[in-house]
């Protein structure tokens, strides 16, 4: 019997759905064991009946064993869909950093909704200024952007922006086999092959305005650690695994670019900003050399970590 799967996207970009498709031929192998009952990106199952005249107060999602949700919760519709998914599914997987920690869209938590609307509908050169759209059909924005587990119970956390297809495959296989998935729990630094001297000569960080020093004809394992080169690498405070099971190096490092932090904190409950400032300060690095500190929470600003400016002073 194939396992029934439902999939939904909330406050997200569809990158996680593309990551699922990037399973490629592995996807073709597991497909016969899965029965998708609801997945808007690929399949035309509707919330209110296939001819569109069902009860609009009841989102219909068929019963499924596994529910995959990408994206955080930003408005009333996201909330209703998340609740309907929780009711319909035995196991909920929070797929991607938006679902697990808010992700990039939770950067909006630094502003109040009115500030966003003023900027968007009344604050651009090209826009014919108008009142904020308020037709009742539009789902009202919540006060901020939430990670999934702030609103519904989550069973499996699979962070990443996007998660590596290897871990999506591992999670699906584990569920098919009735075991817990084996997911990476170390930091990016712990999985990074670059050369670290650990001499602690670093006193301040530089912005990434020129390329790192390295010999492009040599592998990443012969490049000096980007953080020790003074570049703002988030590796020490970021969950590893972005390279997949057999990758040569973390994916940003492979591009010779400092880690952006996209898998969120190493521990599910961690705080990338505090952990990073602590790590720098305990190594005598001047934390004033970071130009803008909220950027350190650009993937993990839900759970109340990023707040509107006025509230932050309190």
């Amino acid at each position, binding site marked *: 019997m194939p396992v029934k799967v439902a999939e939904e*996207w909330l*406050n997200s970009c*569809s*990158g996680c759905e*593309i990551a699922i498709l*990037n399973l*490629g*031929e592995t996807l*073709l192998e597991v497909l016969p064991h899965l029965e998708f009952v609801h997945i*808007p*990106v*690929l*399949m*035309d*199952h*509707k*919330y*209110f009946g*296939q001819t569109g*005249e069902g009860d*609009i107060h009841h989102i219909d999602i068929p019963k499924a064993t596994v529910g995959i949700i990408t994206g955080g919760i*930003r408005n009333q*519709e996201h909330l209703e869909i998340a609740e309907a998914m929780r009711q319909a599914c035995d196991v909920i997987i929070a797929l991607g950093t938006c679902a697990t920690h808010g*992700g*990039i*869209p939770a*950067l909006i938590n630094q502003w109040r909704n009115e500030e*966003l609307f003023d*900027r*968007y*509908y009344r604050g*651009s*050169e*090209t*826009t*014919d200024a*108008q*009142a904020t759209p308020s*037709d*009742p*059909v*539009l789902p009202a924005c919540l006060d901020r952007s939430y990670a999934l587990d702030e609103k519904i119970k989550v069973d499996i956390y699979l962070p990443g*922006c*996007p998660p590596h297809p290897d871990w999506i495959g591992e999670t699906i296989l584990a569920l098919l086999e009735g075991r817990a998935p084996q997911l990476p729990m170390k930091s990016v630094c712990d999985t990074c092959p670059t050369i670290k001297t650990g001499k602690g000569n670093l006193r301040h960080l530089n*912005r*990434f*305005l*020129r*390329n790192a020093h390295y010999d492009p004809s040599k592998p990443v394992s012969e490049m000096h650690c980007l953080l020790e080169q003074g570049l703002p690498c988030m590796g020490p405070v970021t969950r590893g695994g972005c390279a997949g099971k057999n990758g040569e190096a973390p*994916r*940003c490092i*492979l*591009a*010779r*670019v400092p880690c*952006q932090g996209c898998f969120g904190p190493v521990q599910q409950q961690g705080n990338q900003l505090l952990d990073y400032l602590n790590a720098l300060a305990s190594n005598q690095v001047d934390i004033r050399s970071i*130009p*803008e500190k909220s*950027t350190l929470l*650009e993937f993990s600003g839900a759970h109340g970590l990023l707040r509107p400016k006025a509230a932050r002073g309190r």
Partner: protein
Amino acid sequence: MAQTTIEVGAEQTMTHGAPHRRVINIQPITRIEGHARIAITLDEQGNVADTRFNIMSLRGFEKFIEGKPAEEVPKIVNRICGICPWMHHTASNKAVDGCFNAQVPPTGWKLRELMQVMAQINDKILHFFFLAAPDFVLGAGADYKVRNVLGIVQAAPELATQVVKMRQMGQMMIEKFAGKVIHPIVVVPGGFAKPMREDERQEMLAKSREQLEFARFCIDFAKKNIFANLDEATLKLGEIRTGFLGTVKPEDGSLTLFDGVLRLMKPDGSYQDFTYQQYVDFLGEHIEDWSYCKFPYARTWNEGFSMDLKQPKGIYRVNTLARLNVCDRINTPYAQAELEEFRARFGRPAQSTMLYHWARLIELVYACERVIELLEDETITDPHVRNEVTPQAGRGIGCVEAPRGTLIHDYSTDDNGCISRANLIVGTTHNVAPMNMSIRAAADAVIHKGVITEEALNKVEMAVRCYDP
């Protein structure tokens, strides 16, 4: 500035909870990216009184990149779209270059175009086969449980395997070289973060030639098995008459996806070219109370904004059909031959909405040919790929042609090189008004006397899917 008129329809649309009008909700719209719904309101006779295409969410990138160090922003805004992150990544870097007055070395520029065009290849394969083709291969009226890519895997396993393999090869080519294929980081202000080695160039060139073979197979397959079988009603589905916007090379008006001048064409085929910096003089954004998304229109035409089907005002379209309409030619041989055949048959500008699919496959051929051209140039392995940049106050406007249309990133920075203001117009947004109109046209054609079938509603969605929103 033009006086904007609003003539969306005489009647107030009834939405959720309207007791005395039948409202059909197509929700969510599926096999597209993101959250939208269609509401079709019927009159007393059961014919279409009004339709609306509601965009249901707003994330607010223009607001939340304020204050961020500009060099970080190209790695943030790629999250606008997980299907086309390379488009935002490259346009954003061009805008930051402008703010910082950066001089990009020629090879940095070539590598940027290479990545941006390679990403288009995978995107077009994804849209045509995974999202659009089920309606044609399995039929618009097939059971929804079958009418999807999984149904294609069942019905045509060899074709499906080939499609999955070729798309996967394309994705992994990018990932292997650039680190990340979804939400890239390798393009940087001032250029590119790493040079290409000769062995990498050779390997990518060989695979790109395979991609071109496949692209030519795809368009032949589609012409023979899909486009040849389209009946008149399907060809006319969602047809509207609009202007078009796209990017062309300034020297010869040829198609480009990466860099050039913008060309805005009127429905009669006359056009004006303008630079990225002039976009605010040519384009405006209108707001309706029932959509979070704004409605760009041609401000420069001085006729206001109206989505009236008989007399639209200010409406232009973007994306594949628009680009093929505005360009004078395509400078790669196979794509140019396809364009000539297309143009001989449908004229210029072609208005049939269904032709977006055909145009998409012609662009697929162009993208493969262009990638080969870029990789055949041995100077692409030059190690000088980035110049150092200096954070400073400035303004930069960066554009590319995304699969879904002209993409505009306009940033200003403060003295620390942090974003003080941003204005974005993204590909699909330009097509929001046209999609509203195509939905109305399609609904009028398939809904009569209160008879609602799943097939009819799917046909309304097919009109939307042409735009690949």
